[in-house]
């Protein structure tokens, strides 16, 4: 690998938090990827949009609430967060329900964005 290779990485999150560990462990990869100075995008679609829901209170299930981490991502220069409009609508959510600033896009725009990536990781 030549020094300074920058690839377009996309992390596709399609699973809800807490029910399974995928959302949390996906976030761990995202944080590590920041150290490699790559062009990182995060996508939230299907139940993955629930990861960004405001007001998560996890004390009762004795799990760590990792949702504040999404707000800290810009400190790692990870600023490209995309949410698919159709997924939000199907879950009774709007952009106002999300705990971080995102770019909302249509399914077609999402598909086109995916096509421009070098590496797509799905959890």
């Amino acid at each position: 690998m030549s020094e300074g290779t920058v690839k377009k990485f996309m992390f596709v999150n399609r699973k809800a938090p807490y029910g399974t560990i995928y959302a949390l462990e996906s976030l761990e990869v995202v944080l590590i990827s920041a150290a490699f100075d790559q062009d990182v995008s995060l996508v939230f679609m299907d139940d993955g949009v629930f990861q960004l829901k405001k007001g998560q209170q996890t004390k009762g299930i004795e799990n760590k609430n990792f949702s504040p981490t999404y707000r800290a991502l810009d400190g790692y220069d990870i600023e490209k967060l995309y949410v698919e409009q159709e997924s939000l609508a199907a879950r009774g959510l709007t952009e106002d329900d999300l705990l971080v600033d995102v770019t909302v896009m249509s399914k077609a725009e999402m598909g086109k964005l995916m096509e421009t990536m070098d590496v797509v990781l799905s959890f």
Partner: protein
Amino acid sequence: MKIAILINEGPYQHQATDTAFLFCKAALAKGHEIRRVFFYHDGVNNSSSLTEPPQDDRNIVQRWSKLADEHKLDLVVCVAAALRRGIKDENLAPGFRISGLGQLVEAGIEADRLVTFGD
């Protein structure tokens, strides 16, 4: 072509690791290089030397060890995911090594393709 593999599920519970294994064998047979196989989530359980399937079943863990030995594969188990699930150096099967998540990102950068197998 250099191909990296990500395996997110454990042995026996899901077919994902079987598919990944057969994919790797086919890729090697075609002359491709498997740059790295990275085990994450419950995928780390593919590396447990304590695994003992029935005699008439495939031994998924040994199968990976053997393929790694024959083709000098780099089988990397995520340390954070491994420690969560009780995988340590003392019960790590031959051919596997425990390392950080950076190894996954690095494989994605260095390989021409990265293919994910999971649930």
